[in-house]
């Protein structure tokens, strides 16, 4: 025992002599005196104010970068709090060994937030991965619905989706062209369909083929009805959106050419029930009876592909 103490003392003196007299990056020093009680109170106040935000940020960063958020950032922060408390109690390196003022100590902790977060990561690694392994084992024994019940939302990173968003904007435009084609092809007066197509700016061979299919009966009448209903609804929904200018023009032009008032298009919502009364009308045995009620309405269930 005596030998051990001597070796430790020797190590401490070695470390002390190795430390530069000035400069922030000192080698590890022996523990210093414990901070006075009144100062400790001041220290904890400053710790919460100065150091904790930096520590929380570092813990979140380490959790994300090293564990894909598997390690709880809150657990890491709590681990650091406890470690700081232990260091304070012992006057320990690397924060309290040289009797810093409460302000200095809090600032040091803020500066060393990444080191503390790394300590927390190492301290919690084993328990975290054990827990994850237990969870994985538990999950593998769960039924489909039990596993789905345990799923929760994780938002995707927007910055990773930039290219996807460009793709989608391009498709949105293509879909709008398709919608315009369908609006023309499903126009209720067959003789007006080509004029509508011209007004809507869909006059290519592909669009012409769709109109021809509608005229020859290749597209069935009830499919055309649904197409008409859907396209008008789509146009109405786009009209509500921010990029409505073009469609406002289109619908205005339609009104001029054919006297088809935009309001008429807007009124055609597909005839789907839209009120609480219909919801309330479905009582017990509801799954089937609800459907029966809707079938009686007759506008949406018939003739779908």
């Amino acid at each position, binding site marked *: 025992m005596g030998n051990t103490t001597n070796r430790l003392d020797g190590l401490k003196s070695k470390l002390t002599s190795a430390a530069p007299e000035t400069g922030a990056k000192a080698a590890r020093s022996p523990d210093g005196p414990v901070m006075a009680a009144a100062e400790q109170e001041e220290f904890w106040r400053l710790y919460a104010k100065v150091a904790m935000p930096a520590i929380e940020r570092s813990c979140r960063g380490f959790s994300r970068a090293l564990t894909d958020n598997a390690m709880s950032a809150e657990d890491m922060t709590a681990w650091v709090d406890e470690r700081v408390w232990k260091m304070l109690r012992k006057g320990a390196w690397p924060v309290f060994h040289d009797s810093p003022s409460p302000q200095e100590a809090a600032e040091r902790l803020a500066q060393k937030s990444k080191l503390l977060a790394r300590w927390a990561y190492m301290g919690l690694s084993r328990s975290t991965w054990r827990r994850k392994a237990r969870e994985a084992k538990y999950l593998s024994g769960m039924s489909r619905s039990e*596993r789905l019940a345990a799923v929760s939302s994780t938002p995707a990173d927007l910055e990773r989706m930039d290219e996807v968003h460009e793709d989608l904007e391009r498709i*949105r435009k293509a879909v709008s062209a398709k919608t315009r084609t369908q609006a023309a092809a499903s126009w209720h007066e067959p003789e007006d369909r080509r004029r509508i197509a011209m007004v809507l700016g869909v006059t290519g061979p592909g669009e012409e083929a769709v109109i021809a299919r509608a005229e020859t009966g290749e597209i069935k009448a009830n499919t055309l009805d649904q197409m008409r209903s859907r396209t008008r609804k789509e146009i109405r929904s786009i009209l509500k959106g921010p990029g409505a200018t073009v469609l406002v023009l289109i619908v205005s032009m339609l009104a001029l050419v054919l006297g088809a008032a935009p309001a008429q298009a807007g009124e055609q919502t597909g005839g789907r029930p839209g009120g609480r009364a219909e919801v309330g009308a479905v009582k017990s045995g509801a799954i089937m009876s609800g*459907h029966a009620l*809707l079938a009686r309405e007759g506008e949406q*269930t018939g003739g779908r592909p």
Partner: protein
Amino acid sequence: MSPATTTTTHTTLITAPNPTNMSALEAAMMDACNQLHEAVGQGDDDAALRLRSDLAEMLDRYEHSNADDHPNADWAVPHQRALALSAAGEVEGAIVYEEIALEHAGTDRQREISLGNLADRSIRAGRAEQAVEYFFRARDVSPRSVPIMLTGAQALYLAGYVSESNRIFQALGAMPRLLREGTELTAYLDFETRLQEMRLDLPALDELLGRWESIRAEGV
């Protein structure tokens, strides 16, 4: 762009963005709907009949309790009925009820859920382009939602936008934190059988599924 062809099997899964925010009755209905989807998919008529009856009872209770004090009962009641109809295989009825719910949606989250569900059901009804429309509306409301992107990727694929669909899976694959147990992405990879059919045409999805399969194999 060539139209993709695939058989649309009866597989739908229901997840909640935050399961702890649901009432006990809502959680029970979600579980029952997931079980009913599974029973219908497997052709287990006895289980399906029992679950339909259970769900009908729960829906009545839900409606009579003013949607278990949901802050927006006008949205919640038709939304839950739509979930149940969908699980029972009555897709058209589910679409109509979800549209009723959509009209009463009071928050972006409610709009996102209803529009996403409408996209999914349009796919099941064989109307891929309508699904794409709903997907775009859902994306406007919630561009970061993983289930919306996954449903959208399926809709785009079925509407013939194969490379764009692949790009979505590529982007999702670049986010490793989504590839772990308990996320919406891995729930879809595990249980959405349509993705297994699509992987033949989509290299990024194939890679994503392969990575997830090897992660799971290592975990066992």
